[in-house]
C-alpha cells in the first residue's frame, strides 16, 4: 500500500455490451498533485471516474484509490473523497442550500465558515429551489458541496462546464487552495487550456485507451498555437521557419500552426512582412487529436501503444 500514490490503476477494463468503454487504462495520481484527465467526449473519462468511485465494477485490471479497492471498500474510500459529477442533477423541490447541507452532512458535516465563503465567492443564492437553477448554478451547488469539507482526493468531472469565465477563475483559485492544503485532485476535462492552467501531470484518453501520460512539459509537443494572419508575407518563407506546421495560404491570408518555442521567431518574421489582421488561438483538443493521432482511433491506439498503456485484449474497439 503505497501512500505516495493516491490513485493507481493497471489495465483497467470496462465494457458495456460489445463496446469497450475502458480498454486497459493505466492511471497514476500522486499525492499532492493536480492531475489532468483529458480526452474528447466519449473517451471514457467519466466511466473511469465511476470505477474509481466504486459506482461501477471494473471488468478487468486493478484499481487502488487511497490504497484501497474502490469497489469492495467504497464507504471507506468515500470518506476521504469529494466528487463533482459531470452532469449535476439536483432535487427540484429542495433549495440549493438544502442540497449542499445534505451532501456535506452525509460526508460528516461542512466547515461552516468555508461554506459561507464559497457561497459568497461562487455568488450562489442558496435559498432558491433547485428547479429554478441554471446548469451553471447546479454545477456551483455540487462544487460548493464538494469543497466545503476537506478531503484527501477531489474527483472533479468536467467541473467548469456551464460556469462563466469569472466563476472558472474562482474555481481555479479553490483548486490551488486545496492543493496547497496537501490534497490531490483528479480533474477531467476536454479543454486543454483549463488543464494547462491547473495541472502538473496529464493523462490523455482516447477511445478507452491512454494515448499520452506525463508532465505538461513532456507533452509540450501537443501544444501548438494556431495562427491566422492577414499578411503579404511570402508563404514559402514562413513555411521554411522551424516549428511551423500545416501552412495553408490564400491570397493575403495565411493559416498555420506553430510550436510553442518557435512563436517568437514567427512573430518577428510576420512583423517585418507587415500584418493587417491576426487571430491566434490555442488548438482545441479535438484538432490536436485529429492531427496528432489521426481521426481513426484504431490507428491512434496502435501508434500510442509504444509509449502508453498496454492492454492484453486484442478485441475491436
Amino acid at each position, binding site marked *: 500500500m503505497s501512500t505516495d500514490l493516491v490513485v493507481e490503476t493497471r489495465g483497467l477494463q470496462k465494457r458495456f455490451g460489445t463496446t469497450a468503454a475502458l480498454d486497459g487504462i493505466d492511471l497514476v495520481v500522486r499525492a499532492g498533485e493536480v492531475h489532468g484527465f483529458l480526452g474528447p467526449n466519449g473517451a471514457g473519462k467519466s466511466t473511469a471516474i*465511476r470505477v474509481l*468511485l466504486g*459506482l461501477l465494477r471494473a471488468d478487468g485490471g486493478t484499481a487502488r484509490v487511497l490504497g484501497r479497492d474502490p469497489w469492495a471498500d*467504497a*464507504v*471507506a474510500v*468515500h*470518506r476521504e*473523497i469529494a*466528487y463533482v*459529477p459531470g*452532469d*449535476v*442533477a*439536483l*432535487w427540484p*423541490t*429542495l433549495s440549493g442550500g*438544502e442540497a449542499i447541507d*445534505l*451532501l456535506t*452532512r*452525509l*460526508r*460528516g458535516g461542512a466547515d461552516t465558515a468555508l461554506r459561507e465563503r464559497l457561497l459568497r465567492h461562487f455568488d450562489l443564492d442558496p435559498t432558491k429551489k433547485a428547479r429554478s437553477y441554471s446548469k451553471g448554478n447546479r454545477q456551483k451547488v*455540487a462544487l460548493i*458541496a464538494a469543497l466545503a469539507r476537506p478531503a484527501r482526493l477531489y*474527483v472533479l468531472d468536467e467541473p467548469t462546464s456551464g460556469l462563466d469565465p469569472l466563476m472558472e477563475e474562482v474555481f481555479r483559485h479553490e483548486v490551488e487552495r486545496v492543493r496547497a492544503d496537501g490534497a490531490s485532485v483528479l480533474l477531467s476535462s476536454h479543454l486543454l487550456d483549463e488543464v494547462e492552467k491547473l495541472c502538473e501531470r496529464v493523462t490523455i484518453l482516447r477511445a478507452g485507451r491512454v494515448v499520452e501520460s506525463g508532465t505538461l512539459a513532456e507533452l509540450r509537443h501537443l501544444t501548438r498555437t494556431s495562427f491566422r494572419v492577414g499578411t503579404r508575407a511570402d508563404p514559402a518563407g514562413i513555411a521554411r521557419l522551424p516549428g511551423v506546421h500545416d501552412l495553408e495560404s490564400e491570397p493575403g491570408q495565411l493559416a498555420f500552426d506553430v510550436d510553442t518555442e518557435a512563436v517568437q521567431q514567427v512573430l518577428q518574421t510576420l512583423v517585418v512582412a507587415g500584418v493587417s489582421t491576426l487571430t491566434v488561438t490555442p488548438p482545441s483538443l479535438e484538432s490536436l487529436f485529429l492531427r496528432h493521432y489521426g481521426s481513426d482511433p484504431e490507428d491512434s491506439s496502435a501508434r500510442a501503444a509504444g509509449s502508453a498503456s498496454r492492454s492484453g485484449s486484442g478485441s475491436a474497439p
Partner: protein
Amino acid sequence: MGTVLTLVRMRLRRDRVALTVWVLGITALVGGASSAVITEFGDPDQQRQLITLALATPALLAFRGVPNGFSSGSIIWFQLFTWVAVLIGLLNTFLATRHGRAEEQDGRRELLASTPMGRMTPMVSTLVVGIVVDVLIGVLSAAALVAVGESVVGAVAVDTPYGVTAAVPRDRAVGR
C-alpha cells in the same frame, strides 16, 4: 443508521407537499365515502339487498372480494377497500420509483453514492419512508372510520390490510 435517517428526512422534506396531499386525500376519501355508504345503505334491509345483489354478480366479487356479513362495517369494506388499496398501491409505486430508479436515471444518485454510505442505504431509507406513510394513512383512515361511527376494532381491522397491500407494490418497485 445515521445516514438512513438523514436520507429519510431528505425524502420527507422533498415530498412534503405531494405526500401531504396523498395522505390527506386518501383519508378524506375513506371518511367521505364511508359516511356516504352509511347514509345510502343505512338500514339493514338495504344492506341485505346490496349484499345479495353483489353475491349474484361474479365480476363484482372478482374485483372486490366476498362480503363478510351484513353489518355497515362490512358494507363499507366491500364498497371501498379495492379502490383505496389501488390508490395506496399507486402512491407507493410512485414513491419507490421517484426515490429509486428516477434518482439513478437523472444522475442524482451519483451525488449521494459518492458519499460514505452503504449501497443499500438509499433503498432502505425509501422503504422506511414508505412504511411511515402507509402507517400514517392507516392511522388517519382508522380515525376517519371511527369518526363516522364505526367501532375502533373494526376500523383497525379495515386499515391494517391497507398497509399490507401497500407493501407489495412498494417492495416490488424498490427491489426492481
